[in-house]
């Protein structure tokens, strides 16, 4: 005979040896309000291995009367939600503590750097000193350091003849130029398509037919776009 089995949540553990309290939830018809209402029943369940934790979802099975109030046993743990919760409570505070120590160290380093350079960017601080020493003013840099910086920024005299530091602005300018040339490129094919449509419509229709489309149905602008795309692809 198949033994009856139920699914429930562990709501109390560790208070009795090898025993947990499991809540079995079910829907019960309430004839007064004519609808199902959530109802539950708590039962004491045998847990031989003491594996369950509060919050675990378990399947329990009837065995035989084991004690005055206990005749069911845990058959399997279906979701280890309680077990993982307990694990997180032990592990995560330690993780956060270590993480915080590391972050504090980073903050302290940044703070020292800022104090050392008087709030300047490292590159700016170096260039400022290099400018002073190249112009013959007192900078407090050793000759070796000056040589090193000169090599780093590829400089011989001040003002520099070339771009010393790559600026964000320069990069943006480049991007704009590339976009512009791309747009110019497409414009060329559109113009060509327009010219083709005006001067030799028969040729244009043939191109559109070769692409598997009916030129008599299409509007002029769409024809132009199709031909421009075709020209760009074939180019």
């Amino acid at each position, binding site marked *: 005979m198949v033994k009856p089995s139920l699914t429930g949540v562990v709501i109390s553990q560790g208070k009795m040896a090898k025993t947990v309290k499991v809540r079995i939830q079910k829907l019960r018809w309430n004839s007064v309000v004519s609808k199902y209402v959530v109802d539950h029943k708590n039962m004491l369940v045998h847990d031989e291995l003491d594996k369950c934790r509060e919050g675990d979802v378990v399947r329990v099975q009837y065995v035989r009367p084991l004690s005055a109030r206990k005749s069911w046993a845990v058959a399997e743990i279906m979701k280890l939600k309680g077990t*993982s*919760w307990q694990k997180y409570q032990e592990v995560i505070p330690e993780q956060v503590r270590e993480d*915080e120590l590391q972050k504090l160290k980073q*903050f302290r380093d940044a703070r020292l750097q800022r104090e050392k350079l008087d709030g300047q960017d490292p590159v700016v601080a170096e260039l400022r000193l290099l400018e002073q020493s190249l112009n013959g003013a007192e900078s407090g840099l050793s000759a070796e350091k000056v040589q090193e910086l000169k090599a780093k920024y590829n400089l011989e005299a001040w*003002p520099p003849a070339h771009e010393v530091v790559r600026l964000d602005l320069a990069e943006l300018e480049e991007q704009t130029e590339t976009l512009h040339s791309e747009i110019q490129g497409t414009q060329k094919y559109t113009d060509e398509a327009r010219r083709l449509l005006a001067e030799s419509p028969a040729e244009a229709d043939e191109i559109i037919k070769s692409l598997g489309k009916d030129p008599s149905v299409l509007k002029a602008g769409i024809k132009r776009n199709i031909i421009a795309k075709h020209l760009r692809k074939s180019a």
Partner: protein
Amino acid sequence: MAADKFFIMSFRLGGFVRSLHTSVPVQARQKYMKKINRLHKHWAKELFRPQPEYVDPVLGQAQVPFLERVRASINQAENQIDQLSPEESSKILFGAEQAAKQRTGFAHNEAVSQAEARKREIFARLVSLNNSNQQQYKKQAVQLAVKEFERFPGDTGSSEVQAAILTMRIQFLAAHAKDTKKDLQAKRKLEHLVQTRRNILLYLKRTNQERYMWTIEKLGLSDEAVMAEFHMSRQYLFKTQFYGEHTLPLKKTKKDTRAARKFEQRKAKALKYLAHNNPDMAL
């Protein structure tokens, strides 16, 4: 005479009958005492059970590393308002100085340098965070919190980030509410923020336990502080001494007195039980 005899006889008979049944009340009393002892043992256990530390549901624990770091970060003297930082500004100002020198053909470097140095000073004063307002401080704190809690760069909507932002706003508003006792709108707003954060954290607990644990640990809250119902009540204000010495005292209700009396009675019985059965524990 006959009456006497009857009396004696009945007395003897009565004694005999009673002696047959003496065990019943004794057993009942033993059973009752056993039950009472078990109860007192339970109370004694409860008395010595370690209670979890109370965590303020508004401000959290004291000396939270993350919050302390944010506080130190926004209170640096060189800080600048909005998205500016002294490092970024120094780049622009250096460029401006070089451009000014270029305009004069690098002929009057010394004079230009002095003029630009003065401009730098003025600029630093204008954009200094110290010379701005609390709003700017809060903005920076929020930015730091977002960076700390984001799941990926640019993430501003995940539950952790929302909870962290609300924590920053709560910290600032609580400081204000403590200073201005009569600003009742601030008090009301503070309660609203705390409830919002609580709802967000409850959602996070339901969906991602690990991340929830990490977030509350980082923000200095505890699971009890999040799960417990919260009201900005006089009980709460009194318990945390919200306004310091200006906090209103709490009137003891009959319910409180009864509860305290009950606790004292239970404590006395528990200690008596321990003195009898486990003298070491009572001490």
